[in-house]
């Protein structure tokens, strides 16, 4: 059984159809890249999988581990193992990052019927993961994402990914706003999480990111559909020739 199966998905936002019958199959252990120009529906796809309000699914299906994902609340999806790394992570003043991480992790564990982490165990786990991502302790005490640099925000997303151990990670434009060094640190963090039990969907405009996170499969999206799929060479091809060839199709 595939981990994620998107079948003929049709999605509207305020009466305008954004996805017109999109299909995608992702198996455990695979890394898929989704590329495409602005407005092709890449972010919409990631939002619909995660359950963001404001999108109307008018046709098709999303199965996750064989279950109907569209029937679940967003927090249930998270507990089942769907993780979305945001393009623009939000700032929540007054809520310490550490508090947020513990509250979220325990909420997920509770939803799965697992016991909550004790404080010492939790701290130990966070410190280990944070150290591996080069995240200083004082960042964990600050309000979540408040005053974080672009790189810090993205590393904080990777930190959560490592902590929650999801089976599906969707990375939405992870490279936006990052310089090359920050990108490398974040990408190393992501690569460390590649595993036979986990799949990743990497959404990006640019091939650059895929030098660091090398995908197994590359899909090109245009006007709400997947128009071409291939191996990692497809990304290089796109970099050379641009999206224009697909726009006309």
């Amino acid at each position, binding site marked *: 059984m595939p981990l994620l199966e998107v079948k003929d998905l049709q999605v509207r936002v305020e009466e305008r159809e954004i996805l017109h019958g999109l299909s995608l199959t992702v198996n455990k252990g695979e890394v898929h890249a989704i590329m495409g120009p602005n407005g092709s529906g890449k972010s919409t796809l990631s939002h619909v999988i*995660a359950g963001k309000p404001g999108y109307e699914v008018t046709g098709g299906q999303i199965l996750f581990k064989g279950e109907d994902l569209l029937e679940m609340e967003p927090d249930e999806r*998270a507990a089942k193992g769907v993780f979305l790394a945001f393009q623009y992570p939000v700032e929540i003043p007054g*809520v310490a990052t550490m508090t*947020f991480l513990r509250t979220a992790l325990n*909420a997920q564990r509770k939803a799965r019927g697992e016991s909550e982490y004790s404080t010492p165990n939790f701290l130990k786990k966070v410190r280990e993961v944070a150290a591996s991502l080069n995240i200083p302790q004082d960042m964990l005490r600050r309000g979540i994402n408040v005053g974080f640099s672009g790189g810090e925000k993205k590393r904080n997303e990777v930190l959560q990914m490592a902590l929650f151990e999801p089976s599906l990670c969707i990375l939405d434009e992870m490279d936006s706003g990052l310089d090359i060094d920050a990108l490398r640190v974040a990408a190393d963090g992501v690569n460390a999480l590649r595993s036979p039990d986990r799949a990743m969907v990497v959404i990006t405009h640019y091939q650059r990111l895929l030098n660091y996170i090398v995908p197994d499969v590359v899909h090109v999206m245009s006007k709400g559909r997947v128009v071409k799929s291939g191996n990692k060479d497809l990304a290089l091809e796109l970099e050379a020739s641009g999206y224009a060839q697909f726009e006309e199709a």
Partner: protein
Amino acid sequence: MAAVQETVDRVRQIDVDQYRYGFETIIESEKAPKGLSEDTIRFISAKKNEPAWMLEWRLEAYRRWLTMQEPTWARVDYPKIDYQDLYYYSAPKPKKEIASLDEIDPEILKTYEKLGIPLREVEVLEGVVRPEGERKVAVDAVFDSVSVATTFQEELKKAGVIFMPISHAIQQHPELVKQYLGSVVPTSDNFFATLNSAVFSDGSFVYVPPGVRCPMELSTYFRINERNTGQFERTLIIADKGSYVSYLEGCTAPQRDENQLHAAVVELVTLDDAEIKYSTVQNWYPGNSEGKGGIFNFVTKRGDCRGANSKISWTQVETGSAITWKYPSCILRGDNSRGEFYSIAISNGYQQVDSGTKMLHLGKNTTSRIISKGIAAGKSQNTYRGLVTAHRKATNARNFTACDSLLIGDKCGAHTVPYIEAKNTSALFEHEATTSKISEDVLFYCVQRGLSQEEAVGLVVNGFVRDVLQQLPMEFAVEAQKLISISLEGSVG
């Protein structure tokens, strides 16, 4: 920490409907005849065995009150109150004079236990020995109108601190009461304060002698139980030169259909170099989901920094009441004195809050700080109203004000009404205000990480009010945090 955890667990056990404090204790009570007249006042005064001067004081206030009009300037809307349709005095019928906690009606004690707050009192009852050095809280409990017992009297006595029901203070320390009662909030002050002066039935009295740091947190727990009773408590706290005291006040009321009136007066006085920290967690019954019932909370709280270098700090967490009309204020009379106001006001359902503060700078180099966090949800209206003034002689007066409002949903309102008057050119007043909504993006971020909608709102709101929560004593901060989440239940989705 253990006590805090215990408190949290206790609060968790109190699961009664939406309003978690909606239960009624059935005990015999003794009421004054319905309605307000000189006879009612004489009845109350006689019940309390008051000296003639006290009765005169009350009657004078009553005659004054007859000439006054109910104020209408606040942004609140409520049906006309029939002052002749209320009971002005209700006391649990005492079998005899109460000498110790053992003699209190077990029904009353059970009520306190349900309220979950005065745990220390329960501990004392159960003979729990606390380790040396742990912080203690002395409780003066006001049940309906009468103060039923105060704890830790012995230890306080050793320190020279007087902490007793004000009715006892009138008997035992008339010189202090005469000197200070009405000296901050005069009997002619305003409609509700004047009414309180006429009919107040009990409340707390605290006197901290010069140079004494009160060895424990003092706490009062108010609860309105009897039907149709107004609760008019009167609190007077005096911190003599160089002393310090921290005072906590918690309020709850059982759930009822009709509105109940609460018009309290709190007066604080600090002499030279003294400090009073006054914290309130108010969760009176706010009315049901259609806006029926609930407490009308018309309270006058004022502190007078009478001495040089003195300080008064108000911290309030207001989550209850159908109507809140409350402006804990500071008169900064002494040179270099300081006033602080930290407030969290949460309104949900049909609640209406008009609350804020007054900082009156009279002395030189006086400073004040106002941090107000208003959260409006449901169909509620939440107004911050604040006055900052500098007198001609208040050279170098400084104020900093920050008012932040958070809206949840699109049927509520938040309003900020600051009044600023400076009568000298050296005053420096700063005012900042923000209004924001909990954005969809923030909520989605939280739920994507596994929090439910309600947990997400609770988390964001607790972050929003964090600066103020940190001002509360530890025991209260945990209660308050819990209370904030409870009072916002059902505000999303």
